[in-house]
């Protein structure tokens, strides 16, 4: 008994603040979170501002300066093109940053879309069970059985591959996994005593689902979803590679890599630069996500 009272006494001064505030503060106090945040903000600002501020048009060709290597790498590098140029003399830095814009937009919104769709379907299926569960889960199975590439080729081949349609296709392909995970967690949680307690208090089903269960099971899933942002950005590259991604001349990571493939032997940097940015972005997001998750666990674990 005395041992269980102790952490409480220690938590005294902490206890006055709101839980969410405490989680953010704990996360922010960690070095990983700060590094992640700094890198992410830097990349975001660069992506948003650099192409405009520097006045370098990512689509402007300059054949005379084609295949300039990045700084200090090989012969003929130039301060004007810190990351070199591609086969048409376009500036790689501004191309990569503009590509980052689109890739990030596609990655994040796709992930949010499939997380939301999956979570909702899983929540209803898991909470109500029975017939609702059967119908929703068979729907999920049907969706799972269609290979993503076929789906993408069909939809994007028929309509024009615009950014919203790409987001829709990728989101549609990704949600079943989330629905499955959500369903099984909700099924486990809804049998617990506190859910019964809320029922006895007179809470409606929707109230229990959205105010009690969702806040509990969504954060761990959102943490997994952060990894999916990366996956989706790469999938967009895959679509770009097939020619079903964002159409040239708009640069995205996908079509930059696809272009660079032909010059891998004599101009490795074209295909490499998007990858470097991808790694930086994802590492920073993961660092922040991991720090948040740790803070969350620490606070809810009783620290």
């Amino acid at each position, binding site marked *: *008994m005395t041992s269980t009272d102790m952490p409480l006494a220690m938590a005294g001064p902490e206890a006055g603040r709101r839980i969410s505030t405490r989680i953010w503060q704990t996360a922010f106090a960690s070095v990983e979170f700060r590094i992640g945040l700094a890198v992410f903000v830097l990349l975001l600002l660069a992506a948003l501002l650099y192409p405009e501020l520097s006045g370098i048009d990512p689509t402007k060709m300059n054949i005379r300066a084609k295949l300039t290597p990045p700084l200090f790498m090989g012969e003929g590098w130039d301060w004007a093109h810190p990351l070199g140029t591609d086969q048409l003399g376009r500036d790689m830095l501004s191309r990569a940053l503009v590509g980052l814009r689109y890739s990030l937009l596609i990655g994040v919104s796709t992930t949010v879309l499939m997380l939301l769709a999956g979570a909702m379907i899983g929540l209803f299926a898991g909470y109500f069970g029975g017939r609702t569960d059967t119908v929703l889960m068979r729907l999920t199975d049907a969706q799972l059985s269609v290979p993503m590439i076929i789906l993408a080729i069909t939809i994007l081949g028929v309509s024009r591959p615009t950014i919203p349609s790409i987001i829709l296709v990728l989101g549609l392909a990704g949600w079943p996994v989330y629905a499955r995970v959500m369903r099984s967690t909700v099924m486990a949680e809804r049998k617990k005593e506190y859910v019964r307690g*809320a029922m*006895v*208090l007179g809470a409606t089903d929707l109230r229990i689902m959205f105010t009690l269960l969702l806040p509990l099971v969504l954060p761990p899933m959102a943490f997994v979803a952060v990894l999916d942002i990366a996956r989706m950005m790469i999938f967009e590259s895959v679509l770009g590679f097939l020619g079903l991604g964002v159409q040239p001349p708009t640069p995205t990571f996908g079509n930059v890599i696809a272009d660079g493939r032909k010059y891998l032997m004599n101009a490795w940097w074209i295909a490499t630069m998007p990858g470097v940015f991808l790694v930086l972005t994802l590492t920073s997001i993961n660092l922040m996500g991991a720090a948040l998750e740790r803070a969350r666990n620490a606070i809810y674990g009783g620290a």
Partner: protein
Amino acid sequence: MALDTTGATETLLSVRGLGVAAGDKPILTDISFDLAPCSILSVIGESGSGKTVLARALASWLSAPLRVTGGEIRFRGRDLVADPGHARSLAGREIAYVGGNPAGALDPTMTVGAQLVEKLRAVRPDIPAAEARAKAIRLLEAVHIPSAARRFHEYPFQYSGGMMQRAMIVDALISDPALLIADNITQPLDVTVAAQILKLMRELNHDFSTAILFICSSLPVACDASDEVMVLHEGRVVERQTPAALVARPGHSYTRELIAELPTLWQGGETGAGREIDRNRRAIMSVRGLAKAYEVRARGQAGVSRVQAVRNVDFDVFPGDNFGVVGESGCGKSSLMRLLTGLERPDAGSVFFEGENVAAASPKRLRALRRKFQLVLQDPYGCLPPQSPIGAILEEPLKIHRIGSAAERRDRARAVMAEVGLSDSLYRALPTGLSAGQRQRLNVARAMILEPRLLIMDETLSALDQTEQGKLLDLFDKLQAQHGFTYIFISHDLTMVRQVCSRIAVMYLGETVEVAPNERLFFDPGHPYSRALLSAAPTLEERRYRPEDCLLEGEPPSPIDLPPGCAFASRCPQAFDRCRAENPALRARGDHALAACFLNPDPDIALHETATETPHA
């Protein structure tokens, strides 16, 4: 490796100045005691006093951050602390350990017999398989498992809780240990089954001359079970005496306190019998012929079988009453709770709350009714939303019923926190750091914030230790005086019910077999099962009912294939032919006491149906 053999013949285990710490925090300090071969020593203490840590230290089963900081444990003269290799070779072979969670300790994918044989051959590889099997069956018989040879091939899930605990004892004894450490083995069991296990421990101690270190948290059980009792308090041994001497002349203030706080069944003291209740008014809750069956898929065969969880339940709860429902686990108490609160619909019968049938109310009406009756659940850890701050937990019911503005709700929550004795600084804290007692206070606060008329307590106190139970009972009293609540206590703890309840219903296999006022139930029970329960209740008092007279060996029949007739007939020493053919209904015995037994004289006004035959007296 000098063997210190002096004195080894007299003491089996000798602990000197043993200290165990978790990190820097000492758990056990300077523990010293001796254990002679073939004796039973009980170790008691409140939760957190280091009992289990002591047991694990002796069984060489400490895991980080726990570590031995000093002292020695001499087993047959050899120090186990200094020689961990030797200690490991003894564990499971010479020193056996039985824990309090048999269901978790048995592998669900192997038959019980295979596990026993595997255990034996792991520590004694030289024993051939056939011999090992014969030994396991012999021991299963020794612990009174019926048809042991057949049960040997069954899986743990086919065993009941009591039988699993027996199987675990066999698992410990199969290697012929010299010392058996029994850590809280009766805690999860029902009183009648626990009493049988205690009797068994005594027999085994006698037959196999195994020394037993019996660890438990209940003083009556410890005194019942052992030759000597050692009291552990805050990681120190404060006292060691024979049970009789301990009770008569406790030497340490903690022991005195423990004995003084011990609730009694018959010797007077505080009881719930004193209150004056007008039982001619309309009942606040009245239950009539309630029944609920669950369908379960039969194991290994097609089709479903029906488990009769609740049947023939009748009782009335009057305003201001403290109504108790007692019975062993599996008797349908929790199913009854779900029916009373409208969480599930009964198959038959009705639950009237202030004249309105809860069992037939529409979902919407039920939600509205729930403002008036609330439930406090059993598990203090599971029943609070794990990630909401305490203030939000308390405001939730108000939000659900759309009461007050945000500011009013906050004030109300703080007021209720003050009322149940939770400090105001906890408002934004998570329940994670709360002790079990504080959690139950929070639960009560959450239930009473809606100002209900009836509070149903489902085993609310069973997870708490004695001191904390007492404090909460005082709190319930105070709240009742202030708000005029009516309580229904669902419990397996007779002493608690004796202390607080004014009227008590006894349940057995889903049925109410007796409903009687407090005094009447404890001094003149009208059903043999009530007597059996009373005989098995752990108490230091002189018993009014001896277990030998009241209960036959065995466990309750399965609720799947209920025998015709009285469900208790198979364990009732007074059962006769009619009991096995016909199920007795509740009959009035005068003064608001009812019992369902043919042994009671036929009253003039029966509650349901007047029996046509003359009952055997």
